[in-house]
């Protein structure tokens, strides 16, 4: 099994020094990539959640004022639950995301990639009190900025990580052109670059396509015209469309 012995850069992985991917190895011995979310999307998600919570609370308090003491008690209980348990309930029961996180396409996972459970979710949300210190989530923000996976204190203690939720990706097809066999065998990196170029071809403008193709003169420019088309032909050959 070559898979076990040789490490191949996986889907979308740029050199690790540049990217913030967190690789997780599953029991099936494949690597999943988690893409931790940084301070800004997380802060925005927090603001959305905060707005939502405040909205509910203000609405409920106005509705409850007619009940005086009893209503005041209900409002305080509601405040308590919203303050401490709103994120926990949504994270555990709502596939790892509060409404704010969902709006920004984020979710909470354990750092081994499994969905967050009650204990860690509770831990990370109780420790928001520590992240809040000394004021306005300063510790949390600093921790988020300094940590290589953008974790706040609560995440470090709970062993959780906030990542971008995976989206459903369709299959952009590689445009069909006449396959062209390369004159000499191509190395893996070149093959990868060619296929990557071909599958993005449809999303690029004509001019940009040509411009990119000119970066590979030894492959693209053999016939002088339309180097992009020739690269597409090579890519078609590489993925197995052979006449």
């Amino acid at each position, binding site marked *: 099994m*070559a*898979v076990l012995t040789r490490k*191949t850069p*996986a*889907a*979308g992985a740029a050199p690790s020094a540049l990217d913030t991917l967190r690789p997780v190895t*599953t029991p*099936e*011995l*494949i690597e*999943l990539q988690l893409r931790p979310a940084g301070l800004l999307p997380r802060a925005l998600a927090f603001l959305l959640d905060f707005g939502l919570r405040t909205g509910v609370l203000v609405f409920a308090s106005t509705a409850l004022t007619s009940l*005086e*003491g*009893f209503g*005041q*008690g*209900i*409002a*305080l*209980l509601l405040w*308590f639950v919203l*303050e*401490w348990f709103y994120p926990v309930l949504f994270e555990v029961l709502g596939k790892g995301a509060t409404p704010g996180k969902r709006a920004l396409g984020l979710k909470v996972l354990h750092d081994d*990639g*499994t*969905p967050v459970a*009650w*204990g*860690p979710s*509770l*831990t990370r949300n*109780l*420790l*928001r*009190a*520590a992240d809040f*210190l000394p004021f306005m989530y300063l*510790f949390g923000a600093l921790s988020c900025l300094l940590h290589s996976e953008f974790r706040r*204190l609560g995440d*470090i*203690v*709970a*062993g959780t990580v906030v990542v971008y939720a*995976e*989206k*459903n*990706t*369709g*299959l952009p097809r590689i445009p069909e052109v006449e396959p062209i066999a390369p004159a000499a065998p191509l190395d*893996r990196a070149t*093959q*990868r670059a060619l*296929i*990557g170029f*071909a*599958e993005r071809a449809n999303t690029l403008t004509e001019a940009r396509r040509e411009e990119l193709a000119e970066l590979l003169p030894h492959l693209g420019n053999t016939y002088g015209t339309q180097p992009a088309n020739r690269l597409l032909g090579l890519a078609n050959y*590489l*993925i*197995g*469309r052979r006449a």
Partner: protein
Amino acid sequence: MKQEQFEALHAADWQLFEDWLADRQLSRKNRKEPPFPLHEAALRYRRICQQLALARDRDYALATLDRLHNLARRGHDELYGARRSFGRRTWDYVTAGFAIDVRAQWRWVLASFLLLFGPMLIAFIVVQIWPDVAYLVMSPHDVAGMEAMYSDANQHLGRTRDAGTDFGMFGHYIFNNISIAFRCFAGGMTAGILTVFSLLFNGLFIGIAHSRVVLAGFGDNFHSFVVGHGTFELGAIVLAGATGMQLGAALLAPGLLSRAAALRTTARRLIGTVCGMAVMLFIAALLEAFWSPLRLPLPWKLGFGTCMLIIVMTYFIFAGRRRGS
């Protein structure tokens, strides 16, 4: 095998798996007939994993890899997200686990107990001798308010006159006390400084208030009020202190682990205790709002309070013994 063939060969499988994943996202009653029997899920997931590994090794197109990676990640979520029933775990924890956890950290509980009750006792004695020492910690206005709360003229014990109804006070106790206890735990992240400070300060404050109310001649009223819920409330504060200090200790002296790992394992060990502590405060709030303010004969109140103390101590000493630790 070339990419096109590979895709053509497995496309149907991938689609089936995707349909299954989509079906799992629906709530239980909205689910249609699953595309394949449930027992095949693990096998199909492993196959996807293997195909992903192959596709990576063969440098297939990014989009194909992305799609497989996506399927594998979502499958991983489904397969490894299964959890034991929540109700069962809760029941186990309430009947035994909590007491076992608390016994396992008895040194910390003892330390926290001393940090709370030490200052309380000292403050009580000092204020008995020099009543004015109280003003070092509390303002004269607060002291007067405290005395008024327990005066014979007050209809509800332990409350200012303009306080709300029983239920209003219940909400207030829940919001206030449990939030403070949670912060006491989280405060452990400041190397335990906040936690220890909060224990010392609460001890001093309670001791002084107690002493001043006794000096004002309302000692019976005060005892009648606090004895019912005191066990739960003070017990929970002690536990909050114990958990916070352990978090602080993990940060200061992680031992052989890295700091992050020490914090993680400590928090995993403590989170149950924190939940138990919150439940204790919930019970305390119930008692404090609905039972403690009642003006009943002092012996009844004392008897009830003693029962609570015995029940709580019995629970912590004996519950879960048979299960071992």
